[in-house]
């Protein structure tokens, strides 16, 4: 049954109530444009009242780590060609996000990375061989998450958003001022776990920063298939979570925005949502063929917004970086890559019987039985080989 609404004559026709109360959405919505402190050429933009620029020494460190991070990333892709890595998802083009985020948190904070955050993790100081263990294939997680306060690189998309909420709440519950930083991709924001995670964090005022690297693709699927929202940062208000969008290829802005977001969370104000607009320069992984779904012109356009050269230009212009410093960082990056290459050349050995060690704290009788069976199989194999 349908009804065709029509206006009704009223006793005292007036228009809508004049005085509207203050809009509760305003403090939660992002600025309509991404925050930028540098333009695309690396020239500083007018000072941003909300986001003071990080100090020069921090920016030099940011530069150093981005250069090393990029070199690491290139090396890792090369390792896939040499069969030393099963697969590698590059974050080339996302250096400002990967490294900026790690400079925004403390060593005591927890980080919840996805499979794409290898660069972030080595930038955090994790051993690159341990970071690449998952992708080399000798075990699922190569580092000690508790010791490094870094969750395993997460493959089931968006699931880490909920863990971050729980960890952050649990830390606060125990009187510690830990912040949790959860990485997530544009595509993964479509998953229910993103919704549930940020909502739990908001309801429990858990100190979490949700950091969306919107690199415009989820494998082949463009952003337009993930959302009809003006931008992903607009999701914050629906959870009562303040949000911001930032130019993800502006390293200074990324660091500034995340620093403030982390401070917001640490101060007990609950979660914060940051969306960085960036671009995945490489295919999804080395196994992907990006030419099937996007053209080179688009990639080229983003090449011009390269975050590393942008920061270099800026720091040089400010006199914070000269040729010698740039060369020194480049050398450091080469040395880092060479050391990694060499260590990755060693074929790792994994004891097959270790398969049974960590299913439960103590293996069940069934697993003990299966371990004996495998032990016998291995012994027979060796006999066969001998």
């Amino acid at each position, binding site marked *: 049954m349908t009804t065709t609404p029509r206006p009704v004559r009223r006793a005292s026709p007036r228009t809508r109530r004049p005085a509207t109360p203050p809009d509760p959405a305003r403090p939660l919505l992002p600025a309509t444009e991404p925050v930028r402190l540098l333009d695309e050429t690396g020239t500083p933009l007018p000072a941003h009242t909300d986001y003071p620029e990080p100090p020069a020494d921090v920016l030099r460190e940011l530069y150093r780590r981005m250069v090393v991070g990029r070199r690491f990333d290139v090396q890792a892709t090369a390792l896939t060609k040499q069969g030393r890595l099963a697969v590698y998802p590059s974050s080339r083009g996302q250096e400002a996000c990967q490294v900026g985020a790690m400079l925004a948190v403390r060593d005591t904070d927890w980080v919840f990375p996805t499979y794409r955050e290898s660069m972030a993790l080595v930038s955090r100081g994790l051993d690159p061989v341990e970071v690449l263990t998952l992708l080399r294939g000798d075990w699922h997680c190569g580092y000690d998450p508790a010791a490094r306060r870094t969750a395993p690189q997460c493959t089931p998309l968006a699931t880490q958003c909920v863990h971050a909420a729980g960890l952050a709440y649990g830390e606060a519950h125990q009187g510690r001022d830990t912040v949790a930083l959860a990485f997530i991709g544009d595509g993964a924001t479509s998953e229910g776990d993103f919704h*549930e995670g940020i909502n739990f964090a908001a309801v429990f005022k858990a100190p979490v920063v949700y950091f969306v690297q919107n690199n415009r693709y989820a494998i082949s699927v463009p952003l337009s298939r993930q959302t009809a929202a003006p931008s992903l940062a607009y999701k914050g208000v629906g959870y009562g979570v303040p949000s911001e969008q930032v130019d993800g290829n502006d390293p200074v802005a990324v660091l500034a925005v995340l620093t403030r977001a982390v401070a917001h969370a640490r101060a007990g104000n609950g979660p914060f949502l940051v969306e960085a607009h960036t671009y995945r320069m490489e295919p999804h992984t080395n196994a992907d063929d990006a030419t099937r779904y996007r053209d080179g012109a688009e990639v080229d356009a983003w090449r011009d917004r390269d975050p590393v050269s942008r920061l270099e230009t800026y720091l040089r212009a400010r006199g914070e970086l000269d040729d010698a410093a740039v060369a020194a960082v480049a050398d450091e990056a080469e040395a880092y890559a060479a050391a990694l290459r060499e260590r990755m050349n060693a074929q790792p050995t994994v004891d097959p019987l270790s398969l049974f*060690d960590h299913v439960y704290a103590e293996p069940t009788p069934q697993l003990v039985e299966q371990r004996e069976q495998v032990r016998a199989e291995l012994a027979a194999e060796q006999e066969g080989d001998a």
Partner: protein
Amino acid sequence: MATTMAKALNAALADAMADDDRVVVFGEDVGQLGGVFRITDGLQARFGDRRCFDTPLAEAGIVGFAVGLAMSGLRPVVEMQFDAFAYPAFEQIASHVAKLRNRTRGALSVPIVIRVPFAGGIGGVEHHCDSSEAYYAHTPGLKVVTPATVADAYSLLREAIADPDPVVFMEPKKLYFSSADADLPARTEPFGRAVVRRPGRDATLVAYGPAVPVALEAAEAARAEGWDLEVVDVRTIVPFDDETVTASVRRTGRCVVIQEAQGFAGVGAEIAARVQERCFHALHAPVLRVSGLDIPYPAPMLEHTHLPGVDRVLDTVARLQWDDQPDARWLPATQGSAA
């Protein structure tokens, strides 16, 4: 002292919370309401809303939040309101809860207890009566436990909370308000031990959770038919107690496995497969199974047809080839198909 399984579970939670500050209890309606089955009754009043609290209505959220809390050093005990409402959390359970210890070579453990009121017999509408234990039992890394007695309810839940591994704790809803004498805090056999609830010489009934009282009732009724049946309560599906079960079947030479869940690829299949593997030469008849039908859980008015009751158990016991003749059921079909 006579008490109910619901009260025993409540006492187990309260005692665990009193003994260990790290234990936190949360879920839907577990706070002020005390849970729709009142299993968490009074916990918020006693321990405060930082130790026992309601969450947003989202099960993946609840389990994933528990994962994070466990990473921070706490010991979360979460309630899924009903069996089928744990399904939204399936990815969190299968891909994280079950695997985190393994994925991190033991560096992270997630000692979470996921309480799941399960199975039927209470006249619940659809989606409130699923038997979902097989999904968890088939997922390595989870322990799966289900009490059938009041004392076990207390003891197994205490052990689950203290256990270093994640435990899916399946609570047979229809037994919540059945009462028995139990001196709490009771401590019964540990995880990994099945228990002979009733000794018998002629055949072994293996059952767990809601099927245990059915097995006991059937064993009682079987006396009239001249059968002396042994009843084994599995208690912990994972880890499974092969020793107790096979010892019993080797003694009796016959075995019927009883579960309330739909039969196909259920826990009963595993038990039947294991028993015949291990007791082949002791068996005078195939291991038979009694289960719910392979249908979605039916509406209240039809659930008694679905549920394996005493008659279905006795019919099955009758087919244990007491005369050493092959089961007539399979003969015609076979001859047909062999032709």
